[in-house]
């Protein structure tokens, strides 16, 4: 599939940088929103008194299992994201619907991660008592900030070509570490249970 870089309806990629300097608000607004989201989540997690529990889904033995499987689903979609992004940029051969695949797998990954994050923040809060927990808390907040920035950046047409891959890569990296420090830890500690 070939991509016309100047096509207005195309999500990726952006035109080459420099031929018209974008207004700084294009970067500032997403960056500020990202900071606001991350700090707000962290502050809520820190201030809110963790309830210890929240509701569970039927068919699962514990909220930990539910969250681990939802997070694993998110990681799966995130890998689809990585592959479909390579397709969009022409680094991999891809079908014509790879942009739709990228959009919808991203939405799916984001939407399944939301209940997990709600449970984390509501029941456990922002914690720092262990290295694993600290990085998980920090990156959990960072992830939603970075994701917000990525979504807002998509709405701008004239961006440096490297910007979206960098932000997208940050989002993916954050999600991966979040998964490693939670779901993988859960499966290794408690076994691969439902």
């Amino acid at each position: 599939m070939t991509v016309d870089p100047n096509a207005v309806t195309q999500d990726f990629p952006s035109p080459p940088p420099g031929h018209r300097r974008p207004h700084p608000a294009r970067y500032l607004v997403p960056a500020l929103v990202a900071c606001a989201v991350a700090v707000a989540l962290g502050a809520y997690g820190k201030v809110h008194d963790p309830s210890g529990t929240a509701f569970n889904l039927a068919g699962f033995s514990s909220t930990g299992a539910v969250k681990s499987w939802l997070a694993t689903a998110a990681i799966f979609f995130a890998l689809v994201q990585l592959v479909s992004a390579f397709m969009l940029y022409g680094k991999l051969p891809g079908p014509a619907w790879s942009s739709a695949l990228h959009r919808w797998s991203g939405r799916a990954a984001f939407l399944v991660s939301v209940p997990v994050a709600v449970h984390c923040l509501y029941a456990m809060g922002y914690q720092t008592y262990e290295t694993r927990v600290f990085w998980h808390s920090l990156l959990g907040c960072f992830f939603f900030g970075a994701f917000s920035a990525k979504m807002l950046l998509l709405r701008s047409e004239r961006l440096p070509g490297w910007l979206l891959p960098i932000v997208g890569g940050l989002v993916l990296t954050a999600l991966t570490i979040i998964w490693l420090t939670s779901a993988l830890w859960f499966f290794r500690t408690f076994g691969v249970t439902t």
Partner: protein
Amino acid sequence: MKRPGPLLTLLAGLLVGVFMLSLNATTGTKNTSSSSADTTKESPAVTASPTPTGTTPSSSPSPTTAPAPVPDARYAGRTDDDSSAVALTLRDGRAIAYFCDGRAKESWLRGDVNDDGTMRLTGKDGSVLNGTLEDGKQIRGTVDIDGGHHAFTAARTKKPSGLYRATSTVRGAEVDGGWIVLPDGRQVGVLTRDGKPSPAPRLDPRTGAVTVDGQRLTAGPAAP
């Protein structure tokens, strides 16, 4: 031309988040689940459910109206000043409680639970716990220990959260360890070797396995 797609995605995520949060807050009975093994005849509707959910507030026992004795259950929580943890196990109208700051201060307390949910537990060191079971969901009260006065709230919880104890002899030293596993999995524990308290090593709450000075011990759930 601005694309609405990404914004809609964010909005959908926000809506899902707010929806789940409000669901949590409204069904927010902290611990109606009671599927731990050492419960109970008192809450059949809850124990019958294999999933420990918080979504069944209607089926929680209501000892305020029922004259029946208080249900067997585990409770764990922290002091209001956040300095220490308190856990209680109730069984057959009796209670054992453990107060622990995770470093040096600890006390085991025992006593009877009255039918109205109040209890006064005492420890060998002279510490006293006064508590009240509120709606079968949590125990609020105070602990007086070493001249200190600590208010606490312990929410009803289930395995592996709860109260654990291990006593043994390791290399000639009498070892007595107590652990409180909080509902979020955090642990607070003190290990006393020949009367000298120190922070306890981490316990595997599922198996009770803990390694003390190179020797593997098994801690069991503490019961009155």
